[in-house]
C-alpha cells in the first residue's frame, strides 16, 4: 500500500526543485504553486525523478558524444591534414637547398662532366628539387590559407623561384660558353651565380624555413586548442556523470522510503553502469590525448626537427662547392659552413679545426654525450638539431639509428677537413675530387649521412602514425559503446520504476 503523500508535502523534494525551466520571475510566480500542487502525489514524484534520471543520462550521452567527436577530429586533423602538410612544408627548404647545391656543383665541374656522379645527375637533381619545391609550396599554401602574413611569404617564394631560375640558367650558359675547366668558374658566370645564391639565401630560403616553422606553430596551436577543448569536455562528462549518479541514488532513496523496499536491482545496476560509462569515457579520452601528444612530440615534431637537420646539412655541404668555386668569398663560405655545421650538431669550437676534433668525439662517446654532465661551465653540451635529438631519444631502436647518423656526420666532417687541407696546399684538382666524391649520389659520404638520417626520420614518422592509430583505437569502441550504454541505462531505469508505478493503476 502506498504511504500517505501528505506526510512529506511540507519539505521540498530535492529532485523536483530542479525541474522548473528558467522563466521570468513573474511567470514563475504563476507557475510555481501549480507545479507544487501537481507534485503532491507519489506517482508524479516518481515520474519527476525518473524524468530527471532520463535527462541526466541524455546529458551524459550528449556531452560524451561531443567530447569524443572533438578528440576524434583532433586526431584526424593532426594525422591526415595538418601533420603531413607541416612535414611537406618543412621539406620546401630542403628542395631549395638542393637546387642551389646542384648549380654550385655543375659550375664547379665545368667541362669535366664525369666528376663524382656527373653533370647530368646534378642537372636532374636540380629539376627534381624544383618540382618538389613547387609541390611543397602548394602544401604550404593550403596549410596557411587565410593567414595574410604566410600567404605573402608563399607568394614571395614562388616569385623568387622564377627569378632564381633565370639567374642560374644565365650562370650555367655563361660557364658552358666559356668552356670553363673544373674549379675555374668563368668570372661572369660566377657573378651571376653569386646573385642567384644571394637571392636564394636572403630571400627564398629564410622565408621557406619560416614557413616550415609556421606550419609547426599551426600544428601546435591546433593541438593545444583541441586538447583544451577536450579537457573542458571531460569536466562536463564528469559533472553530468556525477549528476546522473546523484539523480539515480535520489530516485532509489525515494522509492526505498515510499515503498519500503530495501534494494531496487535495476536502478542499482543503472548507477553502477553510469559510473562505468563515465569513467570509461574519461579514461578513453585521457589515454587518446596522451597518444595524440606522443604522436605530435615524439613523432611529428622530432621528425620535422631532423628534417631541418637534413636540409641545413644539404646547404652546408654545398658551401664546400661554393668555397672551391669562389676564391674571393672563400673565407665567408668557410665561416658559413662552420655556422651551419654548428646548427646541425653543436660542440663549443670557434674554428673548424677545433670543430672537427670535437665532432669526432661524439660518435665514439655515444650514447654518452660529451659535455652534457655540466662539469665544464664553458661547455653547454652536445646541442644543435642532432644533439638535441640525441638527448630526447626515447623511441625503440632509435639509439642505433642515431649512432649511425652521428658516425656518418663525423665522416662528412673528416672529408671536409681533407678537402680544405688539399685546397689550402694548392691542390685544387684534388680538393674538387674530394668534394665531388662527397656529393656522389651513389656512395658519397653525404649520401650515407642522408640515408642514415632518413632512417631515423622514418622511425619518428612511424611513431607519429602509430600514435594517431592508437589514439583512434582507444576511442573507436565508444562509437557504439556509448549509444548502447545509454540505451541500457534507459532500459534499467524503466525496469526499475515501472513495477512501482504499476501499483498505482
Amino acid at each position, binding site marked *: 500500500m502506498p504511504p500517505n503523500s501528505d506526510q512529506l508535502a511540507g519539505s521540498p523534494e530535492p529532485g523536483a526543485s530542479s525541474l522548473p525551466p528558467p522563466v521570468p520571475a513573474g511567470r514563475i510566480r504563476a507557475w510555481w504553486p501549480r507545479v507544487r500542487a501537481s507534485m503532491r502525489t507519489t506517482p508524479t514524484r516518481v515520474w519527476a525523478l525518473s524524468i530527471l534520471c532520463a535527462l541526466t543520462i541524455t546529458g551524459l550521452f550528449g556531452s560524451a558524444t561531443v567530447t569524443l567527436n572533438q578528440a576524434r577530429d583532433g586526431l584526424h586533423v593532426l594525422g591526415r591534414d595538418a601533420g603531413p602538410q607541416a612535414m611537406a612544408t618543412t621539406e620546401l627548404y630542403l628542395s631549395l637547398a638542393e637546387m642551389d647545391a646542384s648549380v654550385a656543383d655543375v659550375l664547379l665541374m665545368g667541362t669535366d662532366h664525369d666528376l663524382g656522379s656527373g653533370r647530368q645527375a646534378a642537372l636532374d637533381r636540380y629539376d627534381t628539387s624544383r618540382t618538389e619545391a613547387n609541390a611543397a609550396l602548394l602544401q604550404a599554401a593550403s596549410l596557411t590559407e587565410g593567414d595574410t602574413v604566410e600567404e605573402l611569404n608563399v607568394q614571395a617564394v614562388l616569385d623568387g623561384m622564377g627569378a632564381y631560375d633565370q639567374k642560374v640558367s644565365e650562370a650555367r650558359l655563361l660557364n658552358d660558353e666559356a668552356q670553363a675547366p673544373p674549379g675555374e668558374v668563368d668570372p661572369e658566370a660566377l657573378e651571376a651565380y653569386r646573385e642567384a645564391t644571394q637571392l636564394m639565401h636572403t630571400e627564398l630560403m*629564410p622565408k621557406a624555413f619560416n614557413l616550415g616553422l609556421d606550419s609547426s606553430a599551426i600544428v601546435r*596551436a591546433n593541438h593545444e586548442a583541441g586538447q583544451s577543448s577536450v579537457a573542458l569536455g571531460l569536466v562536463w562528462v564528469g559533472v553530468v*556523470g556525477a549528476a546522473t549518479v*546523484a539523480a539515480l541514488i535520489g530516485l532509489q532513496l525515494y522509492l526505498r522510503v515510499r515503498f519500503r523496499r530495501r534494494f531496487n536491482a535495476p536502478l542499482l545496476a543503472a548507477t553502477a553502469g553510469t559510473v562505468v560509462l*563515465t569513467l570509461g569515457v574519461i579514461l578513453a579520452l585521457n589515454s587518446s590525448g596522451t597518444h595524440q601528444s606522443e604522436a605530435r612530440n615524439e613523432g611529428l615534431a622530432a621528425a620535422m626537427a631532423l628534417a631541418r637537420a637534413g636540409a641545413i646539412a644539404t646547404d652546408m655541404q654545398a658551401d664546400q662547392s661554393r668555397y672551391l668555386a669562389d676564391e674571393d668569398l672563400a673565407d665567408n663560405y668557410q665561416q658559413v659552413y662552420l655556422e651551419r655545421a*654548428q646548427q646541425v650538431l653543436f660542440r663549443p669550437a670557434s674554428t673548424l679545426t677545433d670543430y672537427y676534433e670535437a665532432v669526432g668525439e661524439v660518435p665514439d662517446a655515444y650514447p654518452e654525450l660529451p659535455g652534457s654532465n655540466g662539469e665544464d661551465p664553458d661547455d653547454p653540451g652536445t*646541442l644543435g638539431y642532432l644533439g638535441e635529438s640525441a638527448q630526447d631519444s626515447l623511441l625503440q631502436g632509435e639509439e642505433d639509428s642515431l649512432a649511425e647518423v652521428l658516425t656518418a656526420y663525423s665522416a662528412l666532417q673528416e672529408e671536409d677537413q681533407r678537402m680544405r687541407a688539399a685546397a689550402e696546399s694548392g691542390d685544387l684538382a684534388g680538393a674538387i675530387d674530394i668534394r665531388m666524391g662527397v656529393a656522389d649520389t651513389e656512395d658519397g659520404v653525404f649520401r650515407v649521412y642522408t640515408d642514415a638520417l632518413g632512417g631515423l626520420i622514418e622511425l619518428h614518422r612511424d611513431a607519429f602514425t602509430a600514435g594517431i592509430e592508437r589514439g583512434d583505437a582507444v576511442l573507436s569502441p565508444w562509437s557504439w559503446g556509448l549509444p548502447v550504454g545509454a540505451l541500457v541505462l534507459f532500459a534499467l531505469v524503466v525496469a526499475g520504476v515501472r513495477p512501482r508505478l504499476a501499483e498505482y493503476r
Partner: protein
Amino acid sequence: MWFRHRRGVAAAALGSVVVMALSACSGERAESLVDADSLTIGVKADQPGLGLDEGGELVGFDVDVANYVAAHLGIDEVEFVPITSAEREEKLVSGEVDMVVATYSITPARKTEVTFGGPYYVAKQDILVRADEEEVASVRDLEGRSVCQGAGSNSANRITDGLGIDVRELQEAESYSACIERLSDGTVDAVSTDNLILAGFLAEDPDSFRFVNNPFTDEKYGVGLPHGDVAACEAVNKAISEMYQDGTAAGLLEEWFGETDLEVVESVPQFEGCD
C-alpha cells in the same frame, strides 16, 4: 541519519569524478607573455643607433623593434630598462625583465636558458677603418695591422684563430666606444665586431670612418624571452615577419643606419625556431 550518510557518499562520488575530470586537463596551460598586460623590456643604453640613453630616454633600432613587437602582442604598457651584455640571461631568467632586445646574438649555448624569437636582424661581423685608410679592402689585409675589440668579445679571435690571419697587435678596450676613440686618434688600425654596432658609431661620425664591407660571420640578433614560452616566441616571429612585409623594418634600418655605407638586408631573416 542513514539518509544523510548516503547523501554524503553521493557528494563524495560526484566530487571524485569532478576531480578526475579536472586532473585530466591540468598542466596544459603555462603562463605566456602573450597574455600579459604590460612588459618590461631590457635594451642597451650605450650602443648608438641600437639602444642609447639620450637625456633619460632610450632610443635606437632595438628599441623601435621592441616597440613594434610589443604592439603586435597587443601590449600598450611597455617599460624600457637599460641592460648590459653580461646581465641579459640573469635578468631574463630571474624575471626582472620579460623580454630582451639588446644586440642579443642567438647561440646554441644561450638557447639552453633563453627562448629566442627572431632573429629580427642578422648582423655580420665586419671591420671599420679610418676613412683615409686605403690599403684595407678585405679581412686578409689586416695581416700586420692592429685590431681592437671590446672586453669579453670574441670578435677578433675569429680573425686570428678562425681565419688564421696574423695581425700585428690585438688590443682590448673596455668597450667598443673606447675602440672607436682609439681608431679615431690612430692608436689602432681597425675595429672589428657586428656591422650593425659599427654602423651605429659610424652614423654618429660618417666622414671619419668607413666599412671594409667584407662581412664574414652571422650574428643573429634575437628577441630574448623566458625559456619555454613557445606561444610568445611564435607571436614574436609573426610580428617580425609583418615588420618586414609592411616596410617598417626597411624604414627603421634607413632611419638608424641610412647615413652609413652599410649594406642592409631588407628581407626577413631565417628564424631560429621556438622549441
